[in-house]
Every structure is written in C-alpha cells, then in structure tokens.
C-alpha cells in the first residue's frame, strides 16, 4: 500500500496497487464490517492482518486472531447475531475445522452480513492438501462467490454482505492463492459510515435454538431461501454472458480460471464463442444455464480441481433436457494448479487451434530442462531454532544425513514452520497430514508398535489450536510418546501473529496475558516436562535421549523465540535509540587449516550461512561462514567436532576475545 494509507482513507476515484487479500479486506471495510477474525493460514493471512494492522485508524473495528477456525467462525456468527457485519477468513483446510459452525449457519441464518473468505491453495505450495472447499456448499448451502481479479475481489466482498443479509446465508468468498497473492490495480469505493456500528443482540429463538423440530423447520427454511437466491441469480450482475458469433460452442468458467481463459482466447486469437462467467459457483440457477445453452451444441467447462461446476451443470443439463455434449475434466487437469499454460493447451486441444510457436517452443524447452535441474526446497531461516531442534533430535536417535541408514524412531510431524524438517537433509518426519495429527496418530502407534519409540512434534500455535485435548487424551489413555513442543512464541509461518506464548511484541512491549506453557502441560497431568533452549544442542540432545528412556508421556519444550522476530525487535529498538544489553560484536569463522570438511555443519546442520567457496590459490573448495548472512546463533560453533569454528568477540573496550579468552591486539 502506497503513500497516505489509502487502505484506510481511500475513497471513490483513488487507485492503488494492492494484494488480492488486501482487496478482500478493503471490500469488507467498505461494506462496514465491525468484526474480522481468522486463525492464520497461507494464502489467506493478509486478509485479517491488514485489518488488524490498521484497526487503530478505523472506528469501531474489532479484529481477532482466534486460536482456531472453529472459534473464529463462531465469533463471526456471534458478531453477526449482534447486528455487526463480520468477516471470517481462513485457508482451505481451515473450513474442515470450522465445518461445524458452517453446517449450522444455513439453519440459523445470519442477522448482519457474514462473509467467510477462504484462500484455497491448488498445487498445495503452502498446504498439506489441495481440497476444493466449494464442495462443502452442497451440504452447508453457503453460497460461493468467486472473484476473477483484484477489482472483483473488492467489489464482490462488498456486495457479498448485502446478499448475505438479503438471503440470510453466510457467503463464502473463494480466492485461490493466485488471487490472494495477485497484486494489481484497484479502484476504491466509498466506505460506509462507521459511527453507528454498535452491537445489539436480539433474541430469536425460532432461528437460533436449532434442535428437534426447530432444526427440521430451519432445514426447510434454508432450502427455500436457496431457491429464492437461485431465482435472484438468473439476472444478477454477478453472472455474465459474453456473446459470441455463430459458433455452436460455449464456454463456462469462474474465478481466476476465467481470467486465464480470457487471456488464453486472446493469445490464441479466438473471439467467436459464447462465454458464461459465473460469479456465483453455488448455487447455480437452472434457468440461467438453460438460457445460456440456447443455440449451443457443445459446452466446455473450464475450472480447477475436480469439477464442481461440471458436476452441477451436468445435472442441470439433464433436468432441462439439453441435447448437446458437455466437456470439462477431459481437457483440464483435476490435480495441481490449473495454470494459464494449461488453459491455453486445453482450449487449443479442444478447438484444434495451435498455440503460438513461441509457446510450444518454451513448453518443450522447459520439459527438456526441468528434470536436469537440482530441486530446490525451502529450509529454515539462518539462525532458526527449529534447525537446532531437528539436529538435536537426529543426533539423539543416532541418525545422520551423511550415512545411509534407517532411523528406527518414529517421528510424527505437524503443521508449521517446523514442517520443513520433513525435507532433506533432515528427513525428520514419518507422516504429516493436518493440524495436531502428529500426536493423535503417534499415540496410537505407540500402543501398537512397542518396538519403536515415538516422538511427536508440534509448534506452539498448533498446540494451542487443538493440541491441548490431544495431549490430555494421550495422558488419560497411557500413551508412550515423547512430545516436543517447538515453542518459538509466534505463528511464524503465516507472518508472525501472536500466540499465547508471545512474551514481547515486536516493539518490545510485554504481552499482558502470556501463558505459562510448562504449567499448562503439568496441569494436564504430565509429570515429565522440561523447558530448554534448543540452541544448546548438546544439552538438548542429551535430554531427548534420557526422555526417550522414560515410560509414558514426556514433554520437552524447545523454547526459543523465532530469530526473525528477535532480529526485527532489536532493529526497531536500535532505531528508537534504546540501549541493547549486548556488550559487543561477535563473529564466527571457520579456520581453513583446522576444517576437515566433516560436513557436520554443512550437511548435518545445513545452515545456509555456511557456504562453499573456491580457494583461488589451491583451486579446491573450502567452507566459509558468510558474515553477510550469519546471525550469530552459535550453533555451528557448538557442534564442530574439530574446534575449527571460532568465535571472535569485539567488546566495547575494543578488546579482542577469541573463544572467550582475551587477546592482545597486534594490529
């Protein structure tokens, strides 16, 4: 966001480059929301983050990073029933957790408009599955809107609140990562008057007491509302028909894929076919589709994932007696992200019109090269305490990356930054699915395979999300697991939202309600609980070893703040002129003469600040700690078996210290 904070102050006539997520948030702001919440999740996190960041400049806006999606959506419902327009955001898998309130929302209905903005993640670059949440609406009956670009992301969100109130449904606004993280031009609208946003809960037992015969009545009511909405959607502004020429072929699409499709047509030079753009992908009006079918013999449905539109439209075709053929998933993949390239190829194959030569050439070139290129996977940031935790675990269980051997301890993975520990070189997870599956599955394995020790991992935010009942369950049912809570004090992966573990804000302000995690774990009935700094790898590793010998549920808290937050705070404190308690500067370096390239730091720890350099004199390679990237966590210094890494300290009296001992300065 540029200049004078247009996100808050922009009005009609203003234009800016914004992120898809910011456009959704702005749409909600223009619609007059008073409540916004989420449990953070990529690619949706910025939707609430931008509102949270700006709330001090916005009258009557409450924001919350809830502990999980179930709570977050319930919170939005509570706000709605109090007459406050509310926005709840989540990532695709978040709806699994929030599916319970979502199931009830159609029954009870809303009072003030309620929008659930969902960031889906086709291709799963930031997720553990690529589920298409639109299918939920076949039973939750939540209407689904799909904006195609930045402008629609804002406009649809704003309008969704009106539709929500008119038909008493929570509206799902679906945005795949391609839209959430699209940055483009947005024309702003005006913000509704915010001065009169005030809660007033009015009892409505007929709708809100949803059980027995009330529930059955409510069921009938929402089916009727759904029919009314379908009727409204025959001629609404959200679904658009682009008329074609004499062609008997029509295309149907929605969301970002529609944008791909229009660009694909332009690249292929095809302009003669009729096109239906569905702004609402649920419900779909039979009459709308019937009208579109008129004069057409072939229909091509262009969409991502498993064919939600195709499923509905084929049913409508059957019921309305359409005689033509409907194509879809034969031409467009069910899995992975449906890219612009794939839409071009699919349309080109269907219409038998070849793409430009430069396109074919580039696709071929990429195919030829891509297998030959070394794969690159993300890894922990330099100085990340998780790297030290994984190193310690692997050392404790006698496993090494440089030797081929099987690790016999079962390591249960979970969701967060530490999930990256499943990648090489650590390979330190044996399964990974959803939030808190680690201990849940791990405790059962500990019962049925007594020959292996089980270590389950969890981050602080994930633990607070839904891990507490899992731990309690493990204790109550006598599981035999070592549970390591990697407590870095933040929901780091999604942009550092606070957790109950957060002690100090980024500006150094202490949190008012920090939880004592160790006490909480104790109170759940765990007698073996210790909190340690994972960067002291030798001590931490020894502790893991001895914990594994104990029976029952053992908990180790790997307590060290996310290095990025620590660095940011120090920078911001320095900028504000505060004194840092540090006594001096230090520097770690590898002594070429002592290093035998045993790979303990370069491959086992695999810190990216340790790099391979060419020796200009000998022509060989040597390991080198890049001072521009090193954050001086000191872990490599501790683990080097040959004492080849040394710590050089310059204290404030310009006294040079080497490995803790003072030296005479000879320079």
């Amino acid at each position, binding site marked *: 966001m540029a200049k004078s904070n247009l996100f808050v102050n922009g009005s009609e006539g203003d234009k800016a*480059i914004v992120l898809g997520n910011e456009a959704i948030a702005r749409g909600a702001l223009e619609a007059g929301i008073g409540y916004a919440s989420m449990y953070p999740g990529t*690619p949706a996190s910025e939707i609430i983050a931008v509102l949270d960041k700006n709330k001090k400049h916005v009258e009557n806006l409450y924001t919350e990073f809830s502990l999980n999606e179930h709570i977050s959506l319930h919170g939005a419902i509570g706000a709605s029933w109090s007459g406050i327009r509310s926005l709840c955001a989540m990532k695709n898998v978040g709806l699994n957790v929030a599916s319970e309130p979502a199931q009830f929302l159609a029954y009870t209905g809303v009072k003030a408009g309620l929008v659930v903005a969902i960031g889906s993640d086709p291709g799963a670059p930031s997720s553990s599955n690529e589920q298409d949440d639109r299918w939920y609406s076949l039973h939750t009956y939540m209407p689904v809107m799909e904006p195609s670009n930045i402008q629609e992301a804002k406009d649809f969100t704003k309008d969704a609140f009106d539709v929500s109130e008119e038909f008493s449904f929570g509206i799902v606004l679906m945005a795949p990562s391609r839209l959430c993280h699209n940055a483009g031009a947005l024309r702003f609208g005006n913000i509704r008057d915010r001065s009169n946003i005030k809660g007033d809960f009015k009892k409505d037992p007929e709708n809100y007491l949803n059980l027995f015969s009330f529930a059955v009545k409510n069921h009938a009511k929402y089916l009727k509302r759904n029919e009314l909405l379908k009727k409204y959607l025959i001629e609404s502004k959200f679904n658009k028909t682009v008329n074609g020429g004499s062609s008997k072929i029509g295309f149907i699409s929605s969301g970002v894929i529609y*944008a791909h499709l229009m660009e*694909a047509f332009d690249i292929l030079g095809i302009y003669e076919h009729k096109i239906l753009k569905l702004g609402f992908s649920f419900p779909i009006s039979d009459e709308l589709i019937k009208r579109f079918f008129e004069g057409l013999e072939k229909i091509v449905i262009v969409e991502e994932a498993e064919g939600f539109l195709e499923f509905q439209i084929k049913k409508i075709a059957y019921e309305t007696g359409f005689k033509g053929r409907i194509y879809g998933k034969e031409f467009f993949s069910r899995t992975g992200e449906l890219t612009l390239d794939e839409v071009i190829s699919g349309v080109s194959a269907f219409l038998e019109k070849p793409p430009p030569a430069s396109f074919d050439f580039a696709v071929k070139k990429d195919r030829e090269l891509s297998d030959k290129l070394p794969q690159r996977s993300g890894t922990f940031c330099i100085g990340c305490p998780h790297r030290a935790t994984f190193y310690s675990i692997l050392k404790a269980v006698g496993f090494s990356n440089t030797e081929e051997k099987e690790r016999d301890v079962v390591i249960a993975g979970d969701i967060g930054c530490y999930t990256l520990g499943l990648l090489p*070189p650590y390979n330190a997870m044996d399964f990974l699915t959803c939030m808190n599956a680690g201990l849940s599955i791990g405790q059962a394995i500990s019962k049925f395979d007594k020959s292996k020790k089980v270590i389950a991992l969890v981050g602080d935010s994930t633990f607070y999300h839904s891990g507490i009942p899992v731990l309690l369950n493990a204790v109550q049912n006598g599981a035999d697991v070592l549970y390591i809570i990697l407590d870095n004090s933040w929901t780091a992966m999604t942009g550092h939202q606070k957790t109950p573990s957060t002690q100090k804000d980024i500006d150094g302000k202490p949190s008012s309600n920090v939880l004592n995690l160790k006490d909480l774990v104790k109170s759940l009935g765990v007698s073996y609980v210790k909190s340690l700094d994972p960067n002291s790898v030798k001590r931490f590793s020894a502790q893991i070893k001895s914990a594994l010998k104990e029976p029952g549920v053992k908990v180790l808290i790997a307590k060290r703040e996310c290095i990025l937050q620590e660095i940011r705070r120090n920078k911001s404190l320095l900028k504000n002129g505060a004194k840092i308690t540090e006594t001096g500067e230090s520097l770690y370096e590898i002594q070429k003469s002592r290093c035998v390239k045993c790979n303990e730091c*370069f491959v086992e720890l695999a810190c990216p600040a340790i790099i391979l350099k060419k020796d200009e004199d000998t022509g060989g390679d040597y390991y080198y700690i890049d001072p521009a990237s090193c954050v001086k966590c000191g872990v490599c210094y501790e683990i080097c078996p040959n004492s080849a890494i040394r710590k050089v300290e310059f204290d404030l009296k310009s006294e040079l210290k080497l490995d803790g001992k003072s030296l005479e300065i000879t320079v």
Partner: protein
Amino acid sequence: MKKFNIAIVGLGGQGIITMGTVMKNAALNSDLQDVSGSERRGGAQREGYVETFVKYIFYENAAEMNNPRKSMHSPMIESGGANALISLEPLETLRGIKYLNKDSIVIFNKTPYIPISVRMGKTEYPEISFIVSELQKITKHIYYYDIDAISLEKFNSLTQKNIIALGILFAKADIPIDRFAVESILAEGKGAENNLKAFALGLNL
C-alpha cells in the same frame, strides 16, 4: 492493446516481491493502463523458489478497456510470454527459462545459492557457462553480473541487490513505463537514499 510482461524469479528473502510491487506501482499514471501479476510465495522461508509477474497492459481506447474479451487478464505469464526475465539466482534463471522467447531480455545474478540436494552430494550445480549456453538457444539478449558482490561492495549489504537489478532492467530493456516513476517510488520508500543509489548504479552497469 499492448502488453509488456516481466517475470522476476529467485529465492525467498532476495526481495523479489518488493521488485514486483515497485514495478507495479510505477504503472499507475494513466487511465488506459492496467497492471496484473501474481506472486508465488510458497512460504517465506529462505532458499525456496519465489517468482512474481508484472504485466503491463496498455489499452488503445476506452472501448477496448471496457470490452470483456480484452479487459480480463490472467495473473500469470504464459510460456514464451515474457518480454523480460530477471533472476536473482543463476540456477533459478533456468527454472524461469520457460517464460522466454527469442526477443526476451534476460538479466541474471551470478551468485549461486547452493540447494540442499547439492550440499548432500546428490545433484550438481550447473556451471554458469551451461546456464548461458541454454539461454543462448532461445535469445541473444543476455546480461549477467555478480550483483551480490556489487551490492556488498557498494553498500556493505545484500539488501540493495534487487534494486540494482531493477536499474539494470531499465538500462537493458525498453520498459514502457517511465523510470522516473520508479525513482519517485523509491524516493518515498524505506532506505530511499541507498535505493536511489542502487537504482542509478544498475542503470549504469
């Protein structure tokens, strides 16, 4: 309608997203102009592949801008569709090769960041000469520099390398937006002084 597509690739933490944001903000001056382009963030961690697309669209007239067949733009660039490719890491230039055509301009940074698979001895990092020869099979407009070294030398920091690369882009490619627009954005942003210097440095490389 004229289009100009820029693909920017590299690794998390190199400032790729910032480059895209600066380039997009520089294009807000005309009504008959649109801008689109998504980012592949894929987690904020170090060493992961990141790409961002900057797509400039110039309409001939208002009628074209309101034509539904012309006014909707994908956030992605198609294979062979980039007018320019900037890569802040040599190996990643080859991952971005699919966006190139015979007229594309390629600018890449010579400083390698070794992937874990190479550290573990499972794969080999390609030589710069191989990267250049693969690029030459497609386009002859190839420019590469050790931008990390330049940034370190001039600024004692790697933070400026993305802005140096933007300067190089303006020097080597015929970018259809005003470079003064970029400069005025840099002048208003964080670290303005160094960024303006870095941009000027790139312009003269």
